[in-house]
C-alpha cells in the first residue's frame, strides 16, 4: 500500500462530519500555523515541499504564493478552483464529497499564509449536492471556531464562502473563473496582468486547485522537507488519479508519484487492468486535453524505458511520443475503441466549451469538429486528415487561454499516432460506419 496523504481516512464512517474529522487528527494544521507560525513560514514550507499545482499545469504552489503582490489598502484573495470539468477528471469532486473538511482546513491554513480575509471555493454548478456538503461542513467549522473572527484566539479572521458556477468548462481557467465569480460571462482575461497582481475585483489573488489546497495541511503538520521526500525528483508527493474508461476498477486512486505505470494500470490495488479481458489499445493519461498515446508508447518511452507516474516521465518524448500528467484524468481504451470517434467526441467538447472570444479557437474548434464528424461518418477524404493537422496548428499557441491548445493537442496527437485508422475510415467508409466496427491494424494491412 502506498502512502495516503489525502485519502487515508476516506472510508472512516462519519468522516464528513467535523467531529470525526477532528478526531482523526483534522484541523491540527490550523492550530499549528495560526498559533506557532508566521504566514511567511507557511509559504516557506510549501515552497520546500515542491508541491506542484494539481489543477493541470503543475506550477509550483509555493512559488505561485510568493508572487502574490501585497499592496497597501487592498484585500488579498484565495480562490479555490473546484470547477473540475476536464473530461476524465473527477478526483476533486470525490475528495470534497467524502472529506469536505480536508479542503476547508486547507483553505484556512492557506488563506492564513496568503493574508486573505475572505476566501471563495468556486465549485461547478452541476455539483450542487457537493456544494451543500461543503456548506454544511463550513457551518460546522464556524460553529467550532475554525472560521470567522479571531480563529482559535490567534487574532486571524477568515470568512469562507462557496460559489456555484453555471455550466461552463472554461470557468476552470483561472481568469475565466474570476470573471465568473464577479458575475460575468466566463471569458478568460488577457495576461499579463496575472491574478497575483490583478485578480478578483482587481485585487491580488491566488487561484489553486482543490487537491493542491487540501495537501497544504499535511505539509504544515509534517514539514515541507518530509513532503519532498515522497515521490521522485521534481514530482514530489502523492497525486489523486481519476481512473476511467475501459478499466476493471475505475475510481479515484491516491498514488505516490513515481509509481510504475504498469503497476498502476494492471495491479489490483489500482485499476486492475483492462475490462472484459480485452487488450489495451490507447490512453489519454492526464485529462482530455493531453495527447493520446498508443498503449506501447504509454507503457514504455520511445527509447524503451518503462514509464512511471511523474510529470517528467509521462512527458518524456515531448509531443512526438510523450504526453502529460495534467490533472490526472486517466482514460484507458480497449481494442474495440474507435479513435476517430473518440477524437471527434473530444473535438465536439472543445467546440462546445470554447468561450468564443478569440477567433482561432472560436472558429477553429468548430471546424475541426465538423471535419472529424465527416471522417467518422465515412464522408472524409485523405486531404481532410492533413487539414485537421493544419487547423490544429493554426489554433495552437495563438489564443488568449490554453483552451485553444487543449483543443488542438488531442486532434494532432490522434492523427500522429493513429493516422492509419483515420485513413481506414476514408478508404472503407462503408465498413467503418457499421455500428461497432473497429479498425484492426493487421486486417487493414491485408485488405
Amino acid at each position, binding site marked *: 500500500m502506498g502512502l495516503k496523504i489525502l485519502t487515508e481516512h476516506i472510508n472512516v464512517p462519519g468522516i464528513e462530519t467535523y467531529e470525526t474529522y477532528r478526531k482523526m487528527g483534522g484541523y491540527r494544521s490550523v492550530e499549528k500555523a495560526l498559533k506557532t507560525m508566521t504566514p511567511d513560514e507557511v509559504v516557506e514550507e510549501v515552497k520546500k515541499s515542491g508541491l506542484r499545482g494539481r489543477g493541470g499545469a503543475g506550477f509550483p504552489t509555493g512559488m505561485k504564493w510568493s508572487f502574490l503582490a501585497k499592496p497597501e489598502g487592498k484585500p488579498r484573495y484565495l480562490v479555490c478552483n473546484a470547477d473540475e470539468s476536464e473530461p476524465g477528471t473527477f478526483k476533486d469532486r470525490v475528495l470534497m464529497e467524502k472529506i469536505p473538511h480536508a479542503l476547508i482546513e486547507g483553505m484556512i491554513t492557506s488563506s492564513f499564509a496568503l493574508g486573505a480575509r475572505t476566501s471563495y471555493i468556486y465549485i461547478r454548478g452541476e455539483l450542487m449536492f457537493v456544494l451543500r456538503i461543503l456548506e454544511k461542513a463550513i457551518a460546522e467549522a464556524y460553529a467550532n471556531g475554525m472560521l470567522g473572527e479571531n480563529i482559535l484566539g490567534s487574532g486571524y479572521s477568515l470568512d469562507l464562502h462557496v460559489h456555484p458556477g453555471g455550466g461552463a468548462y472554461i470557468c476552470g481557467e483561472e481568469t475565466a473563473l474570476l470573471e465568473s465569480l464577479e458575475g460575468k460571462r466566463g471569458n478568460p482575461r*488577457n495576461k499579463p496582468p496575472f491574478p497575483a497582481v490583478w485578480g478578483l475585483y482587481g485585487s491580488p489573488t491566488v487561484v489553486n486547485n482543490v487537491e493542491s489546497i487540501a495537501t497544504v495541511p499535511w505539509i504544515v503538520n509534517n514539514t515541507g522537507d518530509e513532503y519532498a521526500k515522497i515521490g521522485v525528483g521534481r514530482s514530489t508527493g502523492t497525486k489523486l488519479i481519476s481512473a476511467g474508461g475501459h478499466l476493471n476498477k475505475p475510481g479515484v486512486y491516491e498514488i505516490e508519484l513515481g509509481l510504475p505505470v504498469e503497476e498502476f494500470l494492471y495491479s489490483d490495488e489500482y485499476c486492475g487492468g483492462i475490462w472484459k479481458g480485452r487488450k489495451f489499445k490507447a490512453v489519454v493519461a492526464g485529462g482530455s486535453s493531453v495527447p493520446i498515446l498508443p498503449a506501447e508508447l504509454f507503457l514504455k518511452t520511445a527509447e524503451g524505458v518503462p514509464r512511471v507516474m511523474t510529470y517528467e516521465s509521462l512527458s518524456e518524448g515531448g509531443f512526438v511520443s510523450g504526453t502529460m500528467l495534467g490533472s490526472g484524468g486517466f482514460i484507458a481504451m480497449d481494442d474495440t475503441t474507435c479513435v476517430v470517434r473518440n477524437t471527434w467526441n473530444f473535438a465536439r467538447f472543445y467546440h462546445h466549451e470554447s*468561450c*468564443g*472570444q478569440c*477567433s*482561432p479557437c472560436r472558429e477553429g474548434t468548430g*471546424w475541426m469538429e465538423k471535419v472529424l464528424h465527416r471522417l467518422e461518418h465515412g464522408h472524409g477524404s485523405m486531404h481532410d486528415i492533413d487539414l485537421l493537422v493544419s487547423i490544429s496548428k*493554426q489554433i495552437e499557441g*495563438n489564443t488568449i487561454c490554453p483552451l485553444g491548445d487543449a483543443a488542438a493537442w488531442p486532434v494532432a496527437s490522434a492523427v500522429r499516432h493513429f493516422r492509419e485508422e483515420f485513413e481506414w475510415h476514408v478508404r472503407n467508409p462503408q465498413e467503418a460506419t457499421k455500428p461497432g466496427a473497429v479498425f484492426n491494424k493487421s486486417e487493414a494491412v491485408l485488405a
Partner: protein
Amino acid sequence: MAKITFDGIEVEVEDGTTILNAARKIGGNVVPPAMCYYTPLKGSGGKCRVCLVKVTAGSAKDPRPMPKLVASCITPVQDGMVVENTLSEQAMEARKGIVEMLLINHPLDCPVCDQAGECDLQNLSYEHGTSGTRYEEDRRTFDKIDIGPLIQLHMTRCILCYRCVYTADQLTEKRVHGVLGRGDASEIGTYIENSLENEFIGNVIDVCPVGALTDKTFRFKNRVWFTKPMDAHRECETPGCCGKVVLWSRGEEVLRVTARKNEYGEVEEFICNTCRFDKKEMSDWIIDGPRHIARASVIAANHYELPVINPHLVPDLPAHVVDTQIQDQN
C-alpha cells in the same frame, strides 16, 4: 521611456506603450493590423489575434525570446525589446491562419454590404488572405433581429470584436445590447426585443470593423466609393458631442454622416445621434474641406474588386443581386 526595435527599426516610446502603438509611431507597412483593439475603448483588444507578433528579445534585462507569439495590441513594450512582424515568418504564417478563421464563416456578401470599400476585414483578407477556401462546411447563420430604426445588425458578418459592447458601456448609460450565447454561437443581440437608441449609440456603427452594424438611415443605398467624403462641423448642443464629422454626399445630397477616423480607422472624437442621423442637409453643416482618406485601404487604392460570390453560400442574397452577380461574372 523605452527603446525597442520593431522589424529592425528603432523607436522610442513612453513606458507602458503597447507594441502596436510603438509600431504605429513608426508607421507604414510594418504596422500590424488590428481588428478588435480600439485605442479610445478601454479594455478592447486581445481577441481577434490578427496583431500577433514575434518577440525575439523580451527586454534588455531579460533578452530571452517570448515562447509564443503575442498580441501586440495589449502587450506593453520593455526597454530593449526586439519585435518582429513582417520579418517573422511565424507571425505572418499565423496571421494568414487567423484571417482564414475570420473568413470561414463570413458570408462574403460584400456586393450587398454597406461596409464594402471601407471594411477592415476586406482590407485584411486582401493583404493577408489566401485565395480560395478550404472550408467546405455550411456557413453559420443567425436569426435576424431588429435593433431599432437607426442601426442595422447583420450578425453573420460580425467578427465578435466586442468593440460595440465597450462603446455602449463607455459612452452610454444603459447598455441594451451585448454578447449572447457562447463559442461560435455567440452573437450580438438584445435578447428581448429592444432598440438601441441612446444619444451616443450611433457610434457603434463607426467602431464596427465590418458591416455588421450599419446606418439604417444611409439614404439611397450607395456604394461608398461613389460618394464624396467631406469634413464638416456644426455647433452641436449635445453635451459630449464634438460636432465634427465626415459628410458622405453625392451632389448636394448628404447620404451619410460619420465621425472622423484616423489612419487606423479609429474615431478620436465621438458624435451624437442628432449629428449622425438627423442632420442630413448641406445647410446643417459648415464644410471644412475634402476628407483625405489616409489609409492605403481598398477604397483609397481603388483596387476593390467584387469577390466571387457563390449564391449557395449566401442564402439571403436578394434575387436581383444574385442575378447581376452572375452576369458580372460571366
